[in-house]
């Protein structure tokens, strides 16, 4: 029984073979195992990432010249709508849910999520929702942007718009059901020894994320139901021609969609808080500050939505109020960034793929954060609203932030998920290409926006061509950067070095079980012998000769 608890035991140890293993068929069926569901989420999300990325490449190709010569402007609008929707609702949000599903039960020492069947239902809403959305291409995809502002969304292609609404409702419901599971699991299913302040920070960030999903998503649902009535039944909630008001839609839409930004970034804040200490061999700096700042961001995230509407139908006093609340968000975010920097300061850094992606996350997210504070300022935002400056800003947050964090997480937990180590060289090539391509693509967009290039256009002023060409070249590098990644994943899956139980010598509970974990996670109930980030605190008992069994015996004796 103790064999699997021994450090660095290879997964093929005799003890392992007694456990039933997951078959490949399980990953295509209605499995209620949170680890299977986690992988299902992750693979599905990556599928849509490649689709969304391909759409982006078509758009960048179109934008390499000022004239709409590569694709028709109408099709360009379909592309931008689908790119936005797919990347947000089918890539980043499900990818966050993937890690939440996979890691939460392992991190808190539980066998599974609180509601395994509900969990499977939540996942299985995503493929139909995604395919439904993609099917709209055959019948005229939606072309009013991912924001679908009426009245444009009411007059530009009924069927595409309605398909868009339906698929967002499906995906939103899925994310809500997932959130119910996360909250319940985190709050009620932690192992008895683990109080809320010895819980890994990833769980804190998922708690904050789930709160936002539960409060925000239904309001988006309400907005879309009303939009749907306008579209099909001919009501006029948002249609000025019938006495309605399009601004009400904007308020309801952003009440969800601003928190949605935090729904997309908070899980990866959590992942970064896990990854940095392990590879820096140092405790996280300011555990409580990071944990509470997630909750603060989540709360503030609910009262800043109208900063997306500074140049829209908002009166002056409202603009001032939302400017103030938006500015305040810089404080908890700043706390996080500084704490992460302090965590790696003075550590013993292993510059492996997971860690360099995490540092890449810090350095790119920083730019997105700084431009975010600028955008909070109303007079400045009025100038750059709906320009390429905004495009640059949110790609620095969502690509530089979420996607870099996501790749860091993939590299960090790949050994746990598959039982194989990744190829470091390919991982580093992947990082360099992504980082370089990313910055070449999005950094010049700041200048484009400031100089006067508006967003969502297929044709633009010839004076902007040089910078656009640079962006397009950067986007090709970015596209190429996925190849080392795909090769790495496939190669490592079959040929990678077998991963030990705990290859990173990490302290959180998921590393106490086999790689990949057995069905129902833990051979025995896991033991909490150290806090999640107690690196360097009690090195003796972790790295010393003391056998796990002895420790167990000692703990049991104490308890009795």
């Amino acid at each position: 029984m103790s064999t699997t608890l021994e450090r660095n035991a290879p997964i093929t140890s005799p003890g392992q073979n007694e456990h039933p293993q997951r078959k490949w068929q399980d990953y295509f069926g209605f499995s209620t195992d949170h680890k299977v569901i986690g992988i299902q989420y992750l693979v599905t999300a990556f599928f849509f990432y490649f689709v969304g990325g391909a759409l982006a490449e078509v758009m960048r190709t179109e934008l390499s010249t000022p004239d709409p010569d590569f694709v028709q402007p109408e099709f360009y609008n379909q592309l931008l709508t689908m790119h936005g929707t797919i990347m947000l609702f089918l890539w980043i949000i499900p990818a966050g849910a993937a890690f939440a599903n996979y890691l939460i039960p392992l991190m808190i020492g539980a066998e599974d999520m609180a509601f395994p069947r509900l969990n499977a239902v939540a996942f299985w809403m995503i493929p139909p929702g995604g395919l439904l959305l993609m099917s709209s291409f055959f019948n005229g995809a939606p072309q009013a942007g991912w924001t679908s502002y009426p009245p444009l969304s009411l007059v530009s292609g009924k069927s595409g718009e309605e398909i868009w609404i339906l698929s967002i409702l499906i995906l939103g419901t899925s994310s809500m059901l997932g959130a119910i599971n996360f909250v319940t699991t985190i709050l009620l299913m932690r192992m008895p020894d683990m109080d809320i302040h010895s819980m890994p920070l990833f769980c804190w960030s998922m708690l904050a994320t789930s709160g936002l999903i539960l409060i925000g998503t239904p309001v988006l649902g309400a907005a879309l139901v009303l939009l749907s009535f306008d579209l099909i039944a001919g009501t006029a909630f948002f249609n000025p021609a019938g006495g309605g008001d399009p601004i009400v839609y904007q308020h309801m839409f952003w009440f969800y969609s601003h928190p949605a930004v935090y729904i997309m970034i908070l899980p990866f804040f959590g992942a970064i808080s896990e990854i940095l200490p392990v590879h820096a061999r140092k405790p996280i700096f300011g555990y409580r500050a990071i944990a509470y700042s997630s909750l603060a961001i989540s709360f503030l995230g609910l009262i800043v939505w109208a900063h997306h509407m500074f140049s829209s139908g908002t009166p002056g006093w409202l603009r001032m109020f939302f400017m103030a609340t938006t500015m305040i968000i810089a404080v908890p975010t700043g706390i996080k960034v500084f704490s992460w920097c302090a965590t790696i300061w003075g550590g013993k850094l292993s510059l492996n793929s997971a860690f360099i992606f995490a540092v890449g996350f810090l350095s790119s997210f920083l730019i997105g954060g700084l431009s975010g504070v600028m955008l909070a300022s109303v007079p400045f935002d009025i100038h750059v609203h709906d320009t390429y400056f905004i495009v640059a800003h949110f790609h620095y947050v969502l690509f530089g932030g979420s996607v870099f964090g996501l790749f860091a997480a993939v590299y960090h937990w790949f050994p746990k998920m598959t039982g194989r180590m990744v190829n470091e060289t390919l991982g580093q090539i992947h990082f360099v290409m992504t980082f370089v391509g990313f910055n070449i693509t999005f950094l010049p967009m700041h200048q484009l926006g400031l100089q006067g290039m508006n967003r969502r256009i297929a044709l633009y002023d010839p004076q902007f061509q040089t910078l656009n060409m640079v962006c397009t070249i950067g986007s090709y590098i970015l596209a190429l950067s996925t190849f080392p990644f795909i090769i790495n994943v496939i190669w490592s899956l079959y040929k990678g070095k077998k991963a030990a139980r705990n290859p990173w010598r990490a302290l959180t509970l998921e590393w106490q079980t086999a790689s990949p974990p057995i069905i129902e996670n833990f051979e025995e109930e896991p033991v909490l012998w150290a806090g999640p980030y107690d690196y360097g605190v009690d090195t003796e008992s972790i790295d010393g000769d003391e056998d796990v069994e002895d420790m167990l015996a000692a703990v049991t004796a104490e308890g009795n």
Partner: protein
Amino acid sequence: MNIPSSILTLIAGVAMTLISLWYGQNHGLMPTAASSDAGDVDELFNFMMTIATGLFLLVEGVLVYSVIKFRRKKGDTTDGPPLEGNVPLEIVWTAIPTVIVFILSIYSFEIYNRMGGLDPMTAGDPGPQMAHSHNGAALVALDTNRQNIALGLGVSPDSNQDVNPLEIKVNGIQYAWVFTYPETGVISGEIHVPVNRPVALNMTAGDVIHAFWLPEFRIKQDVIPGRETNLVFTPNKVGQYPVVCAELCGAYHGGMKTQLYVESEEDYQKWIQENTFAMKDNSSESVAMSPVDSEAKFLAPYANDLGVDAAALAQLKP
């Protein structure tokens, strides 16, 4: 040579400050500023850019330094120092951003007020004024009780209140801007204004939401069907500037552009006269024509899609 680390830190700090101060003034990212409001916004942007550059250098410096300096030696499997936090330090880095955003908020508020954003005439939201219009064509009508109260930027509080602003009605339709000069009845697809006189735009849209953006004036306001929005600005530089639609309004959103001409008083009067005569000859020609030649050529095949049909034109006649 052995320089104490405190001196190195000091030098780094001074260098960082100097670089930030220099870059904050010399980034060259903004286009020409053609009004005093634009100058104010640039000042604010330079200030934010200075702070952002400083923070950027600080954090990136820490990251680069750490990655180089604190790399794990080969074969070293020990852990780093078990430093779990430092309350005074954490208080400092909570306080600094708080102070910065506080200053930024006050400063932005001040600038926004100076731009006329808190002008009581424009700061209140009157809601849609055409709630009971039964006729799509009547959308541009105004609720008489609420005239002159709308959204957007109003008259700057410190501007010369005696000068009567030049009023221009703006109508955004897919994919063109139509400007009506109520004083003279001129209708045009381009906008001409005299230099140094406040211009008050009363804007509405005929179909979907558009946004009226003047990059050189740093001002933008959504143009919303069923509502009236305002922009007041005072150009102070003669020249030709782009007018851009900045809210997705359909397939040719990118083509919805025209020019703003800031002219001397004489040139402006000349233009008005010419166009007043032209109006008498043919009232619709000047509207249907897209201002820039290349675009006109480009958009010609799509004239039907542009929404500039007979009905729209009829509606524009004074």
